[in-house]
C-alpha cells in the first residue's frame, strides 16, 4: 500500500488552446491536509475535477489510493468524498433525505443520519427542506454529504467561501475531525488564515502551475520577512506607524534609534502571511 493517498504525475489539462493545468506533480500523504491555494482561474477546480474522476486528464496521471483514476474511477469513488464549490443539494428534499440518498448510493445500509447532522450543527433542522436553509446551513450540509461514506480522501472546494464565522468554524472542526479519523483532506480556499490554520502543507497554484509547495512555516521562513511594527506619538497627538525589518544587519541600530528618538505607544512583531508570500512568488494577489 502506497504511503500517498494522492499522486499527481505530470498532470495536464487544457480547454482548446488555454492550458488550465500545466504538467503539475505533487503527492499528498495519507492523513495529511493539503491546502491548495490560488486565484480564480488558476486551475484548482480543474485539478479537483481530474483527481475525482469528473474529467479525464489530457496528459499525465492522477493516482488515488494506488489506483489510476482515469483507468478505473469506479474503484475509487466509494473511497472519496467531494464538497463542491457551488451548492448542489436537492433543495426540495429535507437534509435527512439528502444524506440518506447519498448514503444509499454509496451502498451504506446502516447510517446514523442524526449524529452526522449534529456534527455539522444541523441537528434540529434535519426534517426541514433544504430550500429553507441559509447559505451557511446549506454549506454545512454539503460538507456533511461529502463525509457520509467516511471517505479516505476528502476533497473540499472552497468550503467556507462567503460564510459567517460560526459556520466557518463548524466546517473547520469537521475538517480536523476527519483528519483525526485518518482521512486525507484536499482543501482549496481563498482564506489564507484558514489555510494556515488547517493545512499541514500548502500548494500555491498560479496559471496552471504549482509554484510552491511546503508547510506554511517553511514557506514563511523561506519567502517571508519578519518585522517590528510600532505606533509612535507625534506632535499634536497624531499616531504614525513605523516598521523595521528584522534579520538584517541594520536591525539592531534601527531598533535602538526608534526607542531613543520616538514616543512609542505600541510595539509588535509581524510575520509574513501566506498571501504576502503568494504575492511575492507570483506577483499577483489571490483575489483578483
Amino acid at each position, binding site marked *: 500500500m502506497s504511503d500517498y493517498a494522492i499522486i499527481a504525475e505530470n498532470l495536464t489539462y487544457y480547454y482548446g488552446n488555454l492550458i488550465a493545468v500545466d504538467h503539475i506533480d505533487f503527492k499528498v500523504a495519507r492523513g495529511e491536509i493539503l491546502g491548495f491555494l490560488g486565484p480564480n482561474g488558476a486551475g484548482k477546480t480543474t485539478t479537483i475535477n481530474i483527481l475525482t474522476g469528473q474529467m479525464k486528464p489530457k496528459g499525465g496521471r492522477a493516482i488515488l489510493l494506488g489506483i489510476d483514476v482515469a483507468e478505473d474511477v469506479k474503484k475509487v469513488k466509494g473511497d472519496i468524498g467531494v464538497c463542491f464549490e457551488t451548492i448542489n443539494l*436537492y*433543495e426540495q428534499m429535507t437534509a435527512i433525505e439528502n444524506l440518506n440518498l447519498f448514503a*444509499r*448510493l454509496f*451502498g451504506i445500509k446502516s447510517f446514523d443520519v442524526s449524529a452526522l447532522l449534529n456534527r455539522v450543527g444541523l441537528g434540529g433542522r434535519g426534517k426541514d427542506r433544504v430550500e429553507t436553509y441559509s447559505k451557511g446551513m446549506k454549506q454545512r450540509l454539503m460538507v456533511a454529504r461529502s463525509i457520509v461514506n467516511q471517505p479516505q480522501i476528502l476533497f473540499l472546494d472552497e468550503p467556507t467561501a462567503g460564510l459567517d464565522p460560526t459556520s466557518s468554524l463548524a466546517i473547520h472542526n469537521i475538517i480536523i475531525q476527519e483528519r483525526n479519523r485518518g482521512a486525507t483532506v484536499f482543501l482549496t480556499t481563498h482564506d489564507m488564515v484558514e489555510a494556515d490554520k488547517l493545512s499541514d502543507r500548502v500548494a500555491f497554484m498560479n496559471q496552471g502551475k504549482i509554484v510552491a509547495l511546503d508547510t506554511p512555516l517553511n514557506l514563511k521562513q523561506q519567502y517571508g520577512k519578519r518585522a517590528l511594527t510600532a505606533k509612535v506619538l507625534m506632535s499634536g497627538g497624531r499616531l504614525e506607524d513605523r516598521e523595521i525589518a528584522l534579520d538584517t544587519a541594520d536591525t539592531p541600530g534601527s531598533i535602538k534609534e526608534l526607542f531613543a528618538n520616538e514616543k512609542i505607544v505600541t510595539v509588535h512583531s509581524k510575520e509574513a502571511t501566506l498571501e504576502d508570500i503568494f504575492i511575492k512568488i507570483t506577483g499577483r494577489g489571490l483575489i483578483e
Partner: protein
Amino acid sequence: MNIHIIGILISKDLSLFFRKRAILLLTLMGFIFYLVIYFVMPSTVDENLEIGLYSPVPLPIFNQVEEEGLEISPLESEELLKEAVLDGSYVAGISIPADVVEKLDSKQKPVISLYFTPDAPQELKDAMETIVRELVFMQTGHPLAFEVSEEILGQDLTGTPIPPRDRLRPLLAIFILMMEILGLSNLISEEIERRTARALLVTPATVTDIFVAKSIFGIGLAFIQAVLIMTIIGGMNKQPLIVLISLLLGAELATGISFLISARARDFMSVLAWSVPFLIILIIPSFTILFPGAVTGWIKIIPTYYLVDTVHRAVNFGSGWGDIWINLLILFGFTVVIFYAGLYMLRRKFR
C-alpha cells in the same frame, strides 16, 4: 450499469417530481381537465340530420319534412352548398339541376347531386338517396326516373359515426403524453443547472445509471398516466395491446423530446419556451381526428400523426395489426431516432 443505483435514482426522481408544485398542479389539473372535457362531450351522435339544399326550381315538399328528423336548409348556389357541407354545417347537401323539369318532360334522366362530409358513413349516403327518392315521389305523386351522383368533399374517411367524446380519446392520450415533456424536461434541466448531477457522479453512480433511471422514470410516468386516462375513458376496450404499444412508443417519444429540450433549456422558463413550439407541433395531428377534413399530406411528417392515427383506428374502429403495422413501424422509427438524438445531446451537456 447498476440496477440498485438505478432504483435509488428513480425513487429520487419520483419524490422530486411530486414535490414540484407547479409541475404537479399542471399534471393533476390537466388530468382532471381532460376527463371533464371527455365526459361533458355528447356521448351520442345527433340523429337530427341537417341537410343543405340547392334547388333552382321550387320544391315545396322539401321544406315540409322537418318533423321527420330532417332539417333541410335552402342555399343560394351550388358553390355555397359545397362550402357549407365541407365546413361541417350540414352532414350532406342536395343539388337539384336547373333543367330537372325539362329532362323529366323529355323522358331523360336528370342527375341529382349529393354532397357529403368526408366522414359521412355509408348508411347516411344510402339514407340520403332514399330520402331524395321519397321526397321526389311525395312532390310528384309517382316515382321518377333520375340518377343520383354522390360526391365526397375533402378526404373520404368512410366509417361508422363516432360520438364526439370518443373522438377525443386519441387527443387526450397525446395531450397527457406531450404534457409530460414539460415535467420531465424541467426535472432534468434542473439536475444539470443546479449541478446535482455532478454530485451524483462522484458517488458510485455512473452517467449510464443516471440516463437509464431518467429514461425509465420519464417513460414510466408518461405511459402510466396515458394508460390510466385511456382506461377511464374506455380507450382500452378495443385492441388493448395495440393501444398499449402505441402509448409506450409515445411515452418514449415524449421522453426523447424531453432530453432534447433539457439539453438546451436552463430553467423552468426556458423549458416552457422550448416546450411550447414542440407541444403545438406534436398536438396538431390529434386535431385531424376531431376535424377529419383538415388532413393534408404534410401532417404525416409529424411523428405524433402515427401515434394519433393508430390510437384512433384501434380505439374507435377496432383496427387490427394488419391495418396499423405500418403506422407502428414508422412511429417506432421516429421514436428511436428522437430518443437517441435526445440521449446524445444530453450526454454532451453532461460532459
